[in-house]
């Protein structure tokens, strides 16, 4: 009887001789040693994960948070933020900057129509000027991208006016560049109107292409 109960408890795939199985001390030690010896992830890797998770969550519909984690007001404000990437044709007529949606097949279209006309800004020199209209009370805004190592301290944007206009000018070599904005040092923002690129590890980002001389 007891034996029957024991057998039922064991389950169909557990053999009778399981009781004879003993942990292999050498194997256990080797697994634990490898586990402990694996190189620790770099701090940048952890930061990258955090950033990507929060940036991804920012674009997740609010109902998935179950109400308890409803985004705060600035998330809505961020969604309404406007960006203008200035396209410069500096000193050579053949140098141009194209928006990624004009150059990449399958690039995501603009996410939402503009509430107001978007102004375009141009500047001279071998640079691209990034303008961001941010209708909230951000204290500081930084431009991050592959051109500055995603360093939020490398390219602070300048507040142009009190109505939330920020801009930064960055010299960019010809090629495809991926970028995003960091609001107040911790909130990552992508331009909802600009083409977005697949997540390359830093979370959602926009893309811009700088064409060199043809």
């Amino acid at each position: 009887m007891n034996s029957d109960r024991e057998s039922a408890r064991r389950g169909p795939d557990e053999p009778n001789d399981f009781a004879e199985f003993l942990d292999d001390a050498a194997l256990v030690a080797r697994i634990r040693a490898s586990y402990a010896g694996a190189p620790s992830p770099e701090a940048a890797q952890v930061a990258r994960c955090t950033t990507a998770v929060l940036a991804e969550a920012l674009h997740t519909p609010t109902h998935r948070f179950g109400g308890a984690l409803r985004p705060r007001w600035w998330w809505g404000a961020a969604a309404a933020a406007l960006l203008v990437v200035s396209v410069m044709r500096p000193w050579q007529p053949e140098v141009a900057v194209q928006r990624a949606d004009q150059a990449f097949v399958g690039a995501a279209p603009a996410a939402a129509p503009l509430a107001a006309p978007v102004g375009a800004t141009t500047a001279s020199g071998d640079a691209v000027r990034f303008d961001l209209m941010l209708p909230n009370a951000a204290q500081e805004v930084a431009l991050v991208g592959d051109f500055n190592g995603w360093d939020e301290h490398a390219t602070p944007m300048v507040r142009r006016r009190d109505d939330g206009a920020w801009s930064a000018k960055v010299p960019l070599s010809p090629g495809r560049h991926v970028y995003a904005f960091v609001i107040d040092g911790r909130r990552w923002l992508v331009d909802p109107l600009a083409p977005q690129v697949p997540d390359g590890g830093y979370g959602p980002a926009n893309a811009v292409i700088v064409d060199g001389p043809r």
Partner: protein
Amino acid sequence: MTDAELVVRTRAGDPDAFGILVSRYYDACWRFAYHMTGERADAEDVLQDAFLRAYLAIGRYDERDQFRGWLFRILTNQCRNALTSRGRRTRRFVQDEIALESAPAPPLGLATGVEDAALVRALSQLDPLQREALLLKYAEGLEYGEMSAMTGAGESALKMRVKRGSERLRTLLGRSLE
């Protein structure tokens, strides 16, 4: 600040609190994911997905559970998903019994920052469920009851996976364990 306090702050909409949780558990999760996937890049992707799912599901987290256990439940699922997805794409590891058997056994107590490449490779050739059970049992030090709650598998099945996984791993590692 305790995990529970950080969860409360995260639920209240403070992303920095979740960042602290990520920093606190990233290392442990990474070691598990790396030994499960055998690839650093895959492990990093798995962790990102796991933490994102944790963030989105944190409203459903039951405070009576240990946060680490709850997180590992998500992580094990993500590892399974990643391995399934990868299995469809390609097999990354080449069956190379000769190289495996000739790999020298590292001394116990490896230097920090040096993983056991032969072991990681041998693990990658196990059935994923056996690999998962071995790591949870031996590397994470969980009891079978905890493993059962985490994976949804019965204790008997888990014991069987550990037993068969151990035997297979010993075979794969061959002489290096003797």
